[in-house]
């Protein structure tokens, strides 16, 4: 043991990051203690585990799955049934460890379905996962005894003995700390996994499956193992979701859920370990916050996703990591004016686009009932007249012009600063 420890350099930056992460998790409820915020943070935490487990497949092993909700969803179903048994008193088991049950269930279904899906890679793999996802989705409605039919299976998380005689998981704050603890453990475990032989060989299989076969690795076995491990963490997130919402329905195993995790993992960035965590936060903002503000939120989400895929395939994490050489050379502030111009241009465009979208939605859905005048950004706007549309067109035009200018400025400044950094590095 001593030899291995001696050769593992103690990485201070890593300690700072992990203890910072733990501190943020502990401190967040002090800043956001309203019930709504707590529920939202619980949801984001479970989605973080889910999207990190998804990225074990997509980003780290090159496996595009369209059916990852199968593992989180079935994990959630098993967990909810176990929770109901605890509630009835037929089973003695601490609720605190229920996510472990969900995880083992997720891993079990990984063993079962993964045996089929991981026989193939690439597009055939994606197709089979889609098929398995549909299969499980259909089964959820065919077997109401287990899946609870349309209404799902509801439960009561205040079950069994209270932890230390105090923690019943009745108050939302206790659920928050349960999610936070599991999030920290799972994140650490999934990060540790990336630094193991299997984690690295998964990267090798992603880059070049053929060559991996010629250095002694059976790529099918690698994919299978990765899927089982990923299924475990998906199951953990499913169980946490079941505890948080106290209900599990067919929506939990649906293709929509699978698509959502794909969407937000990609937006967060698949190329870096922490990318999916950013995606999960954005998920909270979009699905929970934006959806309560506007009916057009799906439209915004779709637009955002398309723009990210087209202009920023590395996701938000990729954008952040691009700034690292600048930060390291302490020259990031030189980019700020051009970035500020870009943000301003995007804000103007967003204003025009969102106003147009809201007016369209109003015109299509509500104008016939409530008349042509709506309240938009505190102003009365008549959606039936030409004037507001012309104004929007003008604003959009200005936004596009500004964006073009910002793009030139950013490119120019980027090339200059990066060029100087590179030249400095060579001396």
């Amino acid at each position, binding site marked *: 043991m001593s*030899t*291995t*420890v001696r*050769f*593992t*350099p103690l990485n201070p930056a890593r300690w700072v990051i992990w203890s910072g992460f733990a501190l943020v998790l502990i401190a967040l409820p002090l800043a956001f203690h309203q019930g709504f915020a707590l529920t939202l943070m619980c949801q984001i935490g479970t989605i973080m585990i889910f999207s990190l487990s998804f990225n074990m497949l997509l980003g780290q092993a090159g496996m595009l799955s369209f059916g990852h909700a199968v593992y989180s969803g079935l994990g959630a179903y098993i967990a909810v049934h176990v929770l109901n048994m605890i509630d009835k008193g037929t089973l003695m088991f601490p609720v605190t460890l229920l996510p472990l049950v969900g995880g083992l269930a997720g891993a079990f279904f990984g063993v079962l379905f993964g045996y089929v899906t991981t026989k193939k890679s690439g597009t055939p793999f994606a197709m089979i996962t889609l098929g398995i996802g549909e299969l499980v989705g259909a089964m959820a409605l065919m077997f109401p005894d287990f899946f609870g039919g349309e209404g799902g299976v509801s439960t009561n998380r205040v079950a069994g003995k209270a932890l230390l005689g105090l923690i019943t998981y009745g108050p939302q704050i206790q659920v928050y700390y349960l999610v936070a603890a599991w999030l920290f453990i799972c994140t650490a475990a999934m990060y*540790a*996994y990336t*630094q*193991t*032989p*299997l*984690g*690295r*060989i998964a*990267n*090798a299989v*992603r*880059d*070049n499956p*053929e*060559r*991996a*076969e*010629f*250095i*002694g*690795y*059976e790529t099918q*076995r*690698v994919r299978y*193992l990765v899927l089982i*491990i990923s299924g475990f963490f998906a199951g953990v997130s499913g169980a946490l979701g079941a505890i948080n919402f106290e209900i599990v329905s067919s929506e939990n195993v649906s293709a929509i859920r699978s698509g959502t995790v794909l969407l937000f993992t990609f937006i967060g960035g698949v190329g870096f370990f922490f990318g999916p965590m950013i995606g999960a936060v954005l998920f909270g903002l979009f699905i929970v916050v934006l959806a309560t503000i506007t009916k057009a939120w799906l439209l915004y989400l779709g637009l955002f996703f398309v723009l990210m895929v087209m202009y920023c395939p590395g996701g938000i994490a990729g954008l952040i990591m691009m700034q690292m050489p600048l930060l390291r050379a302490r020259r990031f502030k030189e980019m700020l004016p051009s970035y500020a111009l870009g943000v301003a241009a995007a804000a103007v465009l967003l204003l025009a686009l969102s106003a147009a979208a809201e007016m369209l939605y109003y015109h299509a859905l509500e104008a016939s009932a409530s008349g042509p005048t709506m309240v938009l950004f505190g102003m009365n706007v008549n959606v039936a007249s030409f004037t507001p549309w012309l104004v929007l067109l003008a604003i959009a035009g200005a936004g596009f012009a500004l964006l073009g200018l910002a793009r030139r400025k950013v490119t120019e400044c980027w090339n200059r600063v990066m060029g100087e950094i590179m030249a400095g590095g060579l001396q």
Partner: protein
Amino acid sequence: MSAAALELADVRKAFGKTAIIRGVSLAIPPGERHAIIGPNGAGKSTLFNLVSGRFGLSSGSIRLKGEDVTGLKPFEINRKGLSRSFQITNIFHNLTVFENIRCAVLWPLGYKYSFWHALNGLRDARERADEILELIGLKGRRQVKAGLLTYAEQRALEIGITIAGGAEVILLDEPTAGMSRSESDHAVELIRKVTAGKTLVMVEHDMSVVFGLADRISVLVYGEIIATDTPQNIRANRAVQEAYLGTSVSHGHGDEGDGDA
């Protein structure tokens, strides 16, 4: 008599009705450096693909150190001690040079599919990978992404990945393809160094490389070996001259890729 390191017995391969390899028999003793030459389309790369398990045989058998490996998968053949390189560079582009080599030593060191070892704690894997980096002259490029290396460096890495696992039988598919004269001289030195004490089988177009390295040469023409002999005897062989060398030796340098299916 001790078993040959690699023995092919009447190996045949057809794609549909087209016979590419038409009965190749060849025994390569341990420690020999053996070159396979032949005109474009003769089936040299196909033969490598058969031996390394990339393609299945139509008929015949292949024995590795006396053990029948016919029909085994690439990873099974690799685990039995045969490693190959590729004519078109086949590396892990998004991993660093060091990670490329370390991946190649993990299986032979017994770490298999482990997710309970921390890579950075595996001293033997790191030391072995660093030895290989030193050997192939890429120590200074340790932390560079493999996809960003120059062509010659990628070729060196390709050889590094091939030999890293410590296989006793090494197959190199056109290791100097696309290299300049000085680069290929350098590559010959590297090959000599890294295959010391091992059995080497190589496909090569560059005649100066072949005659400089090989103990014996086999000439493959239209899927059949027309001669296997020492370099001097091959040079003097009339059938070989007619079939192949007459055109190519005067140019000295094969200038195009092998067009095998």
